[in-house]
Structures are given as C-alpha cells and as structure tokens.
C-alpha cells in the first residue's frame, strides 16, 4: 500500500506538470483551433534558454527564470508570426501538419545551438525529504507541485479576469465578431502563442529539475496531449484535471506494469474517453452545418 501512495504522490507531481503543458495546448487551441504538436519542443527550448542564462551566463535563479520567461514569450510570438500567420484561413490539415513540422525545425534548432548531448544539471528546488505520516516525500516534488499549481492558477486568473484574457476568450468564440469589436485578432493570436511558450518553458524548467536538461524533455509534449484532450481542449480548468488524471494513471500503471507502459496507458484511456465523450469532459460540443 505504501508503494501505491508513493506512486500517487509522484503521479500528482507529474500530473501538475502535464497540466501546465496542457494549458499551453489549450491556450493555442482556444484561439486558433490548432493543436500545437510543437508544444513539447517549446518546453525543451524554454528549459534550454533557462539553462543558458543560469549556467552559461551565471545568473542566479530568479533573473535567469525571468529572462527565460521573456525569451520564450518572444520565441512563441516569432513562431506564430513566421509559420502560423501565413496559414490563417487554410485547411485544418495544413494547420495541424505545420505544427508537426515546426517540432522538427525546433528540435533541429535546439540540436544546432545546444547539441544533442545532455546539458549539465542545475539544482532549482531544494532537495531533501519530508516525512508525511509514514511516507517520505521528496521536498523538490512538493516544490515543483506547488510551483506548477501557482503558475496554472495565475494563468487561469489571467484568462478569466484581465481584459487581455477576455479578448483571448473572445477570439476563441469567433474571429469576425471580435474584429468588429475593435480587438486585433492577429496580435491576440501572437500573444497567446507567446503565453503558451511561457507555460511550456516553466513546465520545462520544473521537469528539467527532475530529469535533467536533455532532448528527451520534448517527449512531455506527447505525454501531455492526452491530458489536454481528456480535460477538453477548450477548458484550462479541464487541462489541470486532465493533467492530474493522466499523471496518476501513468504513474500507477508504470509502477505496476513497467516503466514503458505509462504513456501507452494514457493513450488507451484517451481513445476510450474520446469514443464516449469526443470533446473531453469540459470541452465545447461543436454542432456542424454543411
């Protein structure tokens, strides 16, 4: 039973990171109806940018994090401007596939600048253990869980309470309506990609604290996709719940069936959920006309 609780705890920690990355998916999907397959690579680049500021430039934690956030915001905006903007109004197929190709390019760029070998480790959260009843919980797990949740709550408050967040929700409803209200759809799209980049990079920094700075970080994009879908692609709140669900399932399944079984289990769950609730638990049901 103790193993089970350990698995639950590590599942919740992983799940909070999945939720953070999944919010990146949701932000972009809400505004432009595109699933950003390159989100995992944005996670990777965000983490690597942070590493560059922290290790190569020798900054301390907070300035490095702040610079990393700014840079990944800019990187997200550049990506939108260069690749997605020319495709506005094109078929969905083109929009989806371009993000897949974008992930190739981003991975290539990462290899060119930072190489394919793992980078040196950076200690971000304090290490150690906390006794929680009979369980020993690693301190950095608690920190990363809290940090991820803090970021998610800030993002949701931003989405629900600020004018910019309201404009973004408006863009999600329909481009023409919002445009006629005097909101610049294009700049909103660009900004939302920037914010998705920030969400990705923060997730990347948290997960890099656990597994180190290496190319494998981008796999979290693949692993977080089920989280976004199970929660419903339109709902940031759903992304958090989806992330926690996926984290739990992955951790428990891989705890009992071996390490490689986690992500497949998440995908099996995804297919099952989609068969019965095609738009996830909190997603909007689309009604289509010819």
């Amino acid at each position, binding site marked *: 039973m103790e193993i089970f609780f350990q698995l639950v705890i590590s599942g919740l920690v992983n799940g909070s990171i999945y939720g953070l990355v999944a919010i990146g998916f949701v932000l972009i999907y809400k505004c432009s109806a595109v*699933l950003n397959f390159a989100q995992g690579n944005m996670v990777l680049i965000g983490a690597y940018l942070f590493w560059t500021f922290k290790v190569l430039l020798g900054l301390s934690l907070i300035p490095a994090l702040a610079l990393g956030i700014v840079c990944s915001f800019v990187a997200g905006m550049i990506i939108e401007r260069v*690749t997605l903007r*020319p*495709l506005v109004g*094109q*078929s*969905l*197929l*083109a929009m*989806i*596939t*371009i993000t*897949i*190709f*974008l*992930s*190739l*390019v981003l*991975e*290539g*760029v*990462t*290899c*060119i*600048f*930072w*190489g*394919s*070998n793992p980078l040196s480790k950076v200690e971000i959260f304090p290490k150690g253990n906390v006794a929680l009843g009979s369980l020993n919980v690693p301190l950095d797990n608690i920190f990363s869980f809290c940090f991820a949740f803090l970021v998610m709550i800030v993002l949701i408050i931003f989405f629900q309470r600020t004018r910019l967040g309201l404009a973004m929700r408006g863009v999600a409803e329909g481009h023409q309506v919002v445009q006629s209200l005097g909101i610049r759809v294009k700049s909103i799209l660009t900004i939302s990609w920037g914010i998705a980049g920030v969400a990705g990079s923060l997730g990347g920094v948290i997960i890099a604290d656990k597994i180190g700075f290496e190319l494998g970080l981008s796999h979290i994009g*693949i692993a977080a*996709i089920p989280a976004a*879908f199970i929660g419903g692609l339109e709902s940031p709140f759903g992304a958090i719940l989806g992330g926690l669900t996926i984290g739990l399932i992955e951790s428990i399944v891989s705890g009992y069936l*071996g390490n*490689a*079984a986690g*992500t*497949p289990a998440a*995908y*099996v769950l*995804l*297919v099952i959920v*989609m*068969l019965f609730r*095609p738009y996830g638990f909190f997603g909007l049901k689309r009604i*289509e*006309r*010819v």
Partner: protein
Amino acid sequence: MSGNTYYPPSGIYSDNYRKDTRILKTRKQVVLAFLALILLFLVPVVPGINSPYLLRLFIGAGIAAIICLGLNILTGYCGQLNVGQSSFVMVGAFTAGLLNYNYALPLWVTVIPAGLAASIAGLIFGAPSVRLKGLYLALTTLAAQIVLTWVALNFIDLASAGFSVEPPSIAGFYFDTPARFYYIAMAFVCVMTFLAKGIVRSGIGRAFMAIRDNDIAAEAMGINIFRYKLLAFLICTFYAGVGGAIFAHYMMWVQLESFLLIDSVWYVVMIIVGGLGSIEGTIFGVIFIVILKEIISVVGPMIEGGVSFLPTGAGSGFLLAAIGGAAILFLIVEPRGLAHRWKIIKSYYRLWPYGY
C-alpha cells in the same frame, strides 16, 4: 488538393467515361510509359548509377513510396490525417519477419499476411473515425503509434533486439544484393502505384474525395461515411504493411528501432511536399525528401566537423531543421506540392510557344 484536371492535346477526345478515366490517354503516353518502365528496370545495369550506394537509395525510396502511396490515399484523397503510419509499417514488417523467422515463408507468401495484419491494426485504430474527425482522429493514429510500439515491445520477444529475415529467392536464386533486390522493390512499386491509380479513379476514390471535401454533404449524397473511412484506413495500412514486409526482407533484419514516430512524420512530410491527393506527387515527394535527406546527412556532419563552435549533434539538427523547414515552406508557398508544379510545367510545355 483538387482532382486531376487534364487538358489533352488538340484532337484527342474522350467520347465516353471509360476513355476519360484512362490512366494513359494518348499513344505517346503509352510509349513514354513503356520507355520509362524499361529505363527504370535498366538502372542496375547502367554503369555509373548502379553503385550499391545509389541502388540502396533507390530501394529505400521505393519502399517509402509504397508506404506513402497508402498514406496519400488516406490523407490526400479521404482527408483523414494519419500520424502513425510507421507503426503500421512495423506491424507489417514484424508479421512478415516472424512468419519468415518461424516458418521460413518467402516474401511472396508473407507480403499478403503482412498487409492484412497491418490492415487489421488500421481498422482497430480507424474505428474511432465513426465519431471523430480532423484533429481528434489524428490523435487516435498517434495513439496507434504509441500503443502498437508498446505491444511489440512487450509481446514479441525479439522486438527490440531484432531478428534476421531471409532475402527473397526464386528457385535457389537469392535477391540479396542491392542490384538484385532493386528489381523486386521496383516491381512492387509499379504494381502498387497502378493499384493506387486504379483505386482513386474508381467509385471508391470519388467517394473518398467527397468525404474529404465535406463529409456531411457526402453522407447526404448517400455515401456510407463510416464504411468508406474504414476502407480508406484499410487501404492505407495495407500499403504500409506491404511496405513493411518488403522492408523486412530487404534489410534481412527487423527491429523496433526502425519504426519510430519520427518516421511517421517523414511520411507525412513526403506527401505534403509531393502534393496531397496526387499519386505522381507522392513519388515526387518521396524522391525529393530522400535526396534532401541524403544531401544533408552528408553535408551536415561536414559542417559540424568544420565549424568548431558547433556542439555535437548539430549535423542531425541541420537535417531536422532543413526538412521541417522545407515542409513548412511548401505548406505556405505551394500547398498543392510538387505535383502542382509538375502540372504547371507540363501545361507550359504543351502550350509552348503560345503560353497565353
């Protein structure tokens, strides 16, 4: 993405539907097609281009072409994105490989079961297409990639270590060198290409295109969407399975590492660059990407070695960035792919010098 608009030269008429849907419409086309076939099969005996290196490239391109033809029927003609094609290739390769490894069956026997096994996997993962479309369906194919890889890893003992497969043979004659295997690969490419041409000009192909253009309208016209979507998945994955079987017998070795998610992405890149909804475009795209890949995998390490400040792995970075960039460029600048360029060149040639 539009269908084939072909303007024949003056004086050539199609006075019935059969004539209009012919693949080769004029006598000149028939002659040229035969010449091209002869040239294709002469390659291994022409000095200069029959080096094992080039022949291996051709064979690789041929196998990729078979796999991409199926993918283009599903994605280009029926409009269903598949980002897990290489997992279906894997199913075919493992089926053929295991049949050969355990029962010593030759390629001629294993190729059909390989295709069928891949089709069954395709039907399972295509079944959610009853309710899902677009993005959501693309995701189930991603699930196929991840789940099938895991299944192979856990339920086939030799999957990750790999096992050997015999090369195809006729009466003691083994097709084990690139020059010999070339004939088999190209024979399969020709057969599968004509099969694909036949499928897309038949009623099935028209139903696929109707579903692609608007599935609700297609259903209103009396097309059974579920059946045709499944059929598209079946055809697509059958091609993948056949490609996988040929790959297994060609490499004489099967292992899990040859069938990764990135390979599925390459196949999508190939059909996007070549042109969605075009059979000849598929071939162009495969050739283009294979050449590009080859050039960069030679040039990339040279740059990496020559420029001292680049980190290790920059060479493969160039490869990824260049191919991804090429695909993005094609999507933005020429979404109809090389096939459309080819049509423009052809019509220019046909109208020359009165091109207005």
